[in-house]
């Protein structure tokens, strides 16, 4: 479990776009996982199980805040995330745009991007983690990436249909 923590924190960060919220989320997920460790089936992937717990806590948390009329802030000081690219203004701007774009995506879009594009899970493992068919993973993932691209590049230059470019 300890070895998984960096990946879990990155996953939670992708979902929340806030370092502090991400760590709260991971901590809550660890607590929940420990209290329900009997529910984890030996032989199945621990990372998938933890990803599911994190996502559930995140989505439940937002729902409960919203139901109480609390505005859920997604703002985050970008300085915390761009240390590696101070020298490269263009890259920095791009990262800023990506962060902003991610904030506009739905949790389910962020979740699938976190699993495949960031964590590098295969489609098969992602399908197992999300407990959906692989075809669903592919269509959700393509949709999320189109949206991300559109938002990050700030244009509608792409006619973002689900059709291919040729047959």
């Amino acid at each position: 479990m300890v070895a998984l923590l960096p990946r879990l924190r990155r996953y939670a960060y992708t979902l929340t776009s806030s370092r502090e919220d991400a760590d709260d989320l991971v901590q809550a997920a660890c607590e929940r996982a420990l209290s329900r460790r009997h529910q984890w089936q030996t032989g199945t992937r621990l990372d998938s199980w933890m990803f599911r717990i994190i996502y559930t806590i995140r989505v439940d948390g937002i729902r409960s805040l919203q139901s109480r009329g609390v505005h859920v802030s997604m703002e985050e000081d970008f300085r915390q995330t761009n240390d590696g690219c101070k020298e490269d203004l263009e890259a920095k701007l791009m990262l800023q745009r990506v962060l902003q774009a991610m904030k506009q995506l739905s949790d389910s879009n962020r979740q699938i991007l976190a699993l495949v594009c960031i964590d590098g899970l295969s489609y098969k493992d992602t399908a197992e983690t999300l407990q959906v068919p692989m075809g669903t993973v592919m269509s959700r993932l393509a949709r999320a990436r189109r949206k991300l691209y559109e938002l990050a590049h700030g244009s509608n230059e792409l006619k973002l249909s689900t059709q291919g470019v040729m047959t």
Partner: protein
Amino acid sequence: MTKLTDEILMAYVDGELDEKETNDVRKAIEADPKVQKRIEIFTGSAAMLQGVYDAPLHEAVPKRILKTLENPESGKPPRKLFNRIADFLRMPGWQPAYALMASFVLLIGIGAGYLASEIISPNKAFPPVALNSEKFSWGLETTASGQTFNIADRALQVTPVSTFLDKSQRYCRQYEQVIIGQNGEKSLSHGIACRDASGNWHTMIYIAPHPAGKSPANSTEYIPAGEEDLIDTMVSRIMASPPLAIEQETKLINQAWEK
């Protein structure tokens, strides 16, 4: 020829296609600038996202998270009263007779619910009434469920409600108790008492209404349950089998609780 949907182009970028499909897409990319352009949607996303979100991979995990794993109890919310009591009931103390007098559960009700469970020792000035007196013990030994017996000159009336075997095969009885105050006011309490090997009955769980206007000491929890629900829950936790039928109970009383 593989149909070049976005999903296929994306799967190509992600290395998820088989060899034939990979070759088909590669040829299409070489031949068609539109495909090259389209595939850009998918090629950059991983690098872009990792650039933004990879920071946690390159730094130490905060101590508070590690601590959660080291000490699972530390971050937990306080346990529910029922669970605490259930754990208490599973304590070795509940099982062997030697611990019979060592402790019991006292619940004090207030308003519509219950505040504060205290797991206390009988030395702590409780019970306030003669719940473990000889009269009480004799009453439970000899009175059928549904019948009332008096202790302390009618100021305290006890009515056994049911009889059952607990998980260590001791007889226990659920009872209701009415205390009649000096001005004639009545207060109803609920309890469970169990019989030790020498025929004495000891109250193990007692649920009392709280005196009006007073807040119980060390109150930490509010349990929104009716007192009857609460005592039934307690009974179901410690009961090994369903309560005895009245005929079985009568037989037991008549033969001085010999199994």
